[in-house]
């Protein structure tokens, strides 16, 4: 339990570094987790070289989903969209530094799902994006 709610996760939940919205933006996408009602939107600004320059998330959710969104956005700054497309479930779990059961895994992966759906320019987010 104390592992799950590590200092890092509580800190990022209570004092996120990348919370907000970017208007205008180059990429924006939002989705919800119907199980818990969490909603998440991610906005990106991409430079002429196709690298992520700015990123922000908004919405509401539990500590795991919010902290994972904050850490994920931090990790993609300066990366190419191709690199973003290659981020996996394992990368997220490594960032969070915790192990999760199937229910909470959905909380942790919501941000990656939203991010990838936006970068791929999909109409709808799909669980296959984070399998």
């Amino acid at each position, binding site marked *: 339990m104390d592992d799950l709610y590590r200092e890092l996760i509580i800190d990022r939940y209570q004092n996120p570094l990348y919370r907000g919205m970017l208007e205008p933006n180059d990429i924006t996408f939002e989705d919800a987790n119907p199980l818990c009602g969490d909603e998440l939107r991610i906005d990106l600004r991409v430079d002429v070289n196709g690298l992520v320059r700015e990123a922000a998330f908004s919405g509401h959710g539990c500590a795991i989903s919010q902290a994972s969104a904050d850490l994920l956005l931090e990790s993609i700054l300066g990366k190419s969209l191709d690199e973003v497309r290659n981020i996996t479930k394992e990368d997220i779990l490594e960032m969070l530094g915790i192990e999760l059961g199937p229910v*909470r895994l959905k909380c942790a992966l919501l941000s990656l799902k939203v991010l990838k759906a936006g970068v791929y320019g999909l109409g709808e987010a799909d669980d296959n994006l984070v399998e």
Partner: protein
Amino acid sequence: MKSLVPANVLNVAHIRADFPILEREVRPGVQVVYLDSTATSQKPWQVIEAMDRFYRESNANIHRGIHLLAEESTAMYEAARVKIAQLINAPSARQVIFTRNTTEAINLVAYSWGRANLHAGDVVILTEMEHHSNLVPWYMLAAELELRLEFIPVTPQGMLDLEKYRQLLKLSPRLVAFTHMSNVLGTVNPAAEIIHLAHLTEAIVVVDGAQSVPHFPVDVQALDLDFLAFSGHKMCGPTGIGVLYGRKSLLDAMPPFLGGGDMIKKVSLRSFTPNELPHKFEAGTPAIAEAIGFGAAVDYLQGIGLESIAAHEQEIISYALERLEEIPGVMVYGPTAEYKGGVASFTLAGVHAHDVAQILDADGVAVRAGHHCAMPLHEKFQLNATTRASFYLYNTVEEVDKLVHAIYRVKKIFRT
């Protein structure tokens, strides 16, 4: 033998001994504190054994077999129906139709009665505190038939606004569908009054009894009910079995719901004659063992007495509300204890419901987190999610204390 314990006081220690799962350690040294009976109740050994015995000794398909096992199985299945009819004081067991659950029972009414009796422009009254199971079937039917849906509002105290209801009745609704007890707020709605007023305008009434029938006596004749839906698994029975009770004249006039075996009297190459009640609405091999388990659950609850169970839950919820409300940052939703059953949905400032539930789980405290299949109600109260603790006959005040203790641990981890 006369008991020395007053009639209304449950011997909870004895009751707990009937539920093997309550002994379970969810992690080493941590015994489960099961506070999620509104989602599904635990099962006493009497129910588990009844189903086990059925499969070991009697199992056969029902209604047509001539051999002994088939006759025994049929008798057991039909005996369960009679027990359930007695529980709700139905005039006849033929008015007790087995379904999969409350949801399927409500869908049966929507598809069969609704399609045959409702037309474009007809008004259907629902409430803002419904479970999705008593909303979505009507949304689907409204889209198909162009019905007009109206909603009885919920007051900030978590009660139905009956003044607004009286105004809505001026629209001459054809149907009023409401929950007898809210699965989120715990509010016990004044069913007799709502039904009486609906009948004055000649509306048919559907009552979602998923939370009422398990927790206090419900008498379909005293309430003058048209339709009542409830589930076995929320009242010490197995999953996969529920009931639709209906007024005989309504059920007789309704077209069948699902087509197939058992629901027919006669089938020729291009036509069929529907069977009599209740078989008309029970197509295919039903959940036989589950119906028998449901019957055993009804025996079990009747043996204890639903009035005693209701009194016990009232005691627990009063104590729980008192303890929860003294925790800084906790906000409990719904009316005061006298107007509700054993359900406490709350938020903790600064902590998402999922995180509350997760940390409670570490102490073995099993609660529900989310919108509890009542998203419109959460929207009304501008909530994303709540944490819900719910109580049944086997819960104790000591378990409430464990819940409160665990909530303080959440506050410590989140530094609130």
